[in-house]
């Protein structure tokens, strides 16, 4: 019952926001819903409910291992959103607030979806609900980004529907009754028709991989993250990618139960390494610090799927990394949003010396950069270390080597851009550089996210470790 409230409360909030009069008070619905949602999901994390057999939605170990991170990220984004929308009074915020809340509700449903069809429907819903957020700025560049997002994302999501159908047919051909819950599919195991499972795996990986932003399906990502407001970028990079990743994990468990785990893991390793490589190369080339965050996100998606391919220990590390990715990416996107607003530009050709203009945001940005490039003692260091350990333990030493090389290149790319933005003298070339009022509303949320990333690194709470162990066990117990 409690777990259904996770879905219902944000959706009700979205409906309320849509009919709410008064642009000034409407944004307060964001943190109000966020607090309820976070409290509820932390409660469920500590005291997990029983999952009904054959249910389509449920707070199963996988939802428990991931969803609270999305709640916390949303709460911080919501707190930031109140101050942000107060600055942006020239744009009506009705659709913006409603879409943000709808995305939270659909993400909660997507993480809890234990049915192949429901998983697809919620993911498609998230994709569509994000469209108004992407063109919130209503510039022609924002429209261009939205168009690419919709076309590439729509094609990806269509292919994952085809993949879901193929998996359904695999079950049907193997004598199944058409029950598409993951429990039933895993139980059918080797009974699934092999060629159809393989076709389904390819289509579903391409489809949900597009949603995650794995290379080479990542092309929408830099445009969308670059043009959307920071708060939207944070939710996309830390929440929407997460639901796609859990989708990949759930499907992989079915493929592995069907006896094709080896094939699945090899493709995951390959696509993960390729994503990291592409991200590292583009990070060395780009001159735009918001697009930089998108490529960094591609890199971290690569890390996640590599972890997913490395057995139970790797999956554990991947869950750990999901949390770290959500928290640190959130901090980076929100502080980058502050810097972008103060500077009025986004490329290092136009922006420099932001340490003097926005000292607090610049400090968070630099610290966040160190966190995201896996410097100790932040969380990402420990989760990436565990991925490397898992890959050496399973005999993937070449993978570990390539992994480290890509991390190193990404580090070069990120430090180059971040320090070019922060250091030096403020360039007043375009005359828009102004001393932004760094109010608590736009500083505290990214700071909290960064602090939590540090906390996860220094002292991972016991209950989280247990949740990840349970989820990893559920995903890899198959023969």
């Amino acid at each position, binding site marked *: 019952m409690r777990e259904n409230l996770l879905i219902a409360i944000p959706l009700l909030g979205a409906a309320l926001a849509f009919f709410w009069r008064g642009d000034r008070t409407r944004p307060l619905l964001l943190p109000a819903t966020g607090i309820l949602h976070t409290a509820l999901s932390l409660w469920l994390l500590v005291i997990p409910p029983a999952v009904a057999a054959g249910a389509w939605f449920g707070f199963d170990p996988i939802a428990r291992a991931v969803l609270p991170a999305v709640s916390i990220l949303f709460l911080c984004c919501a707190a930031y959103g109140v101050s942000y929308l107060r600055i942006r009074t020239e744009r009506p915020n009705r659709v913006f607030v409603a879409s943000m809340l709808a995305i939270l509700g659909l993400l909660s449903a997507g993480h809890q979806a234990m049915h192949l*069809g*429901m998983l*697809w*429907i919620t993911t*498609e*819903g998230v994709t*569509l609900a994000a*469209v108004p957020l992407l*063109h919130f700025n209503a510039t*022609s*560049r924002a*429209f*261009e*980004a*939205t*168009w*690419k997002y*919709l*076309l590439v994302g*729509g*094609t990806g999501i*269509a292919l994952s*529907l*085809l993949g879901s*159908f*193929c998996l*359904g*047919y695999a079950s*049907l*051909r193997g004598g*199944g*009754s*058409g029950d*598409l819950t993951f429990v039933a599919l895993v139980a059918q195991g080797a009974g699934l*028709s092999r*060629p*159809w499972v393989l*076709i389904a795996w390819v289509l579903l990986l391409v489809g949900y991989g597009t949603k995650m932003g794995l290379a080479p399906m990542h092309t929408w990502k*830099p*445009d969308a993250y*670059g*043009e959307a407001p920071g708060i939207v970028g944070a939710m996309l990079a830390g929440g929407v990618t997460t639901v796609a990743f859990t989708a990949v994990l759930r499907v992989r468990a079915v493929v592995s139960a069907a006896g094709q785990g080896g094939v699945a893991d090899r493709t995951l390793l390959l696509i993960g390494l390729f994503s990291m490589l592409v991200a590292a190369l*583009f990070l060395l*080339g*780009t001159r735009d610090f918001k*697009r930089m965050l998108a490529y960094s996100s591609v890199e971290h998606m690569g890390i996640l799927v590599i972890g997913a391919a490395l057995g139970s220990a790797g999956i554990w590390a991947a869950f750990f990394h999901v949390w770290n990715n959500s928290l640190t990416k959130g901090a980076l996107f929100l502080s980058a949003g502050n810097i972008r607003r103060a500077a009025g530009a986004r490329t290092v050709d136009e922006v420099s010396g932001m340490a003097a203009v926005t000292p607090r945001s610049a400090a968070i940005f630099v610290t966040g950069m160190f966190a995201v490039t896996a410097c100790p003692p932040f969380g990402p260091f420990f989760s990436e270390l565990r991925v490397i350990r898992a890959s050496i333990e399973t005999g993937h030493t070449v993978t570990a080597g390539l992994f480290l090389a890509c991390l190193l290149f990404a580090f070069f790319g990120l430090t180059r851009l971040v320090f070019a933005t922060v250091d030096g003298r403020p360039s007043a070339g375009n005359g828009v550089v102004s001393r932004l009022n760094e109010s608590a509303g736009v500083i505290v949320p990214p700071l909290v996210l960064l602090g939590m990333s540090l906390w996860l690194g220094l002292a991972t709470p016991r209950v989280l470790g247990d949740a990840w162990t349970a989820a990893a066990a559920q995903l890899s117990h198959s023969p």
Partner: protein
Amino acid sequence: MNSTMNLLIGLAMGLNLLALGSGRLPAIIRVMSVQGVVLGVMPLLLEYSFDWMVALVALVTVAVKGFVIPSLLRRAMRTAKIEREDEPLIGFVPSLLLGAGGTIAAIAGARMLPLLPEHAGTLLVPGAMASVMTGLILLIGRVKAISQVCGYLILENGIYIFGLLLIHSTPLLVESGILLDLVVGVFVIGIIVDRIQRAFDSLDTRKLTVLRE
């Protein structure tokens, strides 16, 4: 019954090739809408006993794919005063050859896949694969936003054909949910086409190149 089905799917496959070979946007829109109507009728042929939900799905499909979307696209074309000629990145003849090759490969490939006995004699699987491929070729090979949207819709048609394989076994809730999502997706596409034409006064996606590395 299978022969009627195969006739309709064969028709849809022929329409795929027509879409690939035609250079005029109204022609592609027409091909897409005729294909939508042809597909919309098919669930009625599949169903042994009359089922309200299936009938509803069929009705919505015919209405949306056959009439709503085409009129949306035509209106966008009129108001944006875009030229009717499409300029392909992949030429008409090469894309036609690709499509024909893909169709043959789909028929050959579907033979190698294990099918349930009741589906073995139908063109459902090759028809689905051929339409998905046609959609992808249009998506990649054309520059006008409208023809890309048509490509996307033809891709969706292919998925719809495949969905017919499962219409008996999966709960209809899933099927109708899927249809609902397609409608919503198309609505958003309509909005975007509308916004794009205001912002760019043209639907040439080659002009959408401010954002690049």
